[in-house]
């Protein structure tokens, strides 16, 4: 288990990491949804 003394540092670093990645991911997905309405399916080479 996490030692009490340094718990804020350890938990802080995990929070910063995953909140950072999470926000970036949400931004990507939001941009995708916004742009998708204007691009027809045949113009998406991956689908």
């Amino acid at each position: 288990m996490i030692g009490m003394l340094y718990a804020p540092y350890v938990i802080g670093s995990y929070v910063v990491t995953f909140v950072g990645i999470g926000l970036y991911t949400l931004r990507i997905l939001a941009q995708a949804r916004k742009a998708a309405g204007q691009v027809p399916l045949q113009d998406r080479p991956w689908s």
Partner: protein
Amino acid sequence: MTGFMTSTTSPAPSDRAPTSTTFSRALGIAALVGIGWLIVFGLFLSPNDRVQKTGVRILYIHVPSAWLAYLAFGVTGLSSVAYLWKRTRSLTWDRIAGASAEVGVLFMGITLVSGSLWGRISWGTYWTWDARLTTTAFLFVTYIGYLAVRGLGGTHQQRAKRSAVLAILAMLEVPLVHFSVTWWRPLHQNETVENGKLSGLMLFTLFVGIIAFTLLYVWLVLHRQRVLTLLDQVDDQGLDVAIVERRNEVVNAQEVSP
């Protein structure tokens, strides 16, 4: 839900997640599972290190994110070379370079924050002018500059050419910065991880972290690259509309002029 029922023009799944494919969905799930494991092992199941105590837990995210940041910048450099190399000047390479640099800056930021928190526990200080730290900080700023140049505008090909050249210059710059700071401050702090003093479960947790972050990196770059493709295509379509509008100025002018 009613919106979904009445919408007939576009299939719902692709509109809610337009950049997803079966592969990327599987990849995303794998990355999520990996991160879940990492959190469980890193925060709870793995033991404290004898020397570093609980501080070792930060390394499970610090080391993988540092490795991926370097990998990401390497991918940016190679994609930029590929863009300039091929006579076709494929924008796909440019978008991969841009997506990878963005993800690299994100991971580099995480590396710097988690690294200084780890340093506070292990060294008693947030920052030390060690060669590796200093190079890392310079990389971070350099690629922020790269992203700023990508946002300057112009046509897609102009953006691609300019940023590809800049990425290659960055690749030249990084070794020079690294050499200079290594000579400047040759002393390294204790490198517990590299010396392999971690116990079995700790190494396993670190391994889980590297796998999880690598999957995450691939997922992020894949999606970001697809979003950039969509955004470029929206631009191109905007151009088609704008051309029609522009041509109609002729008609309007005729109506106005005597």
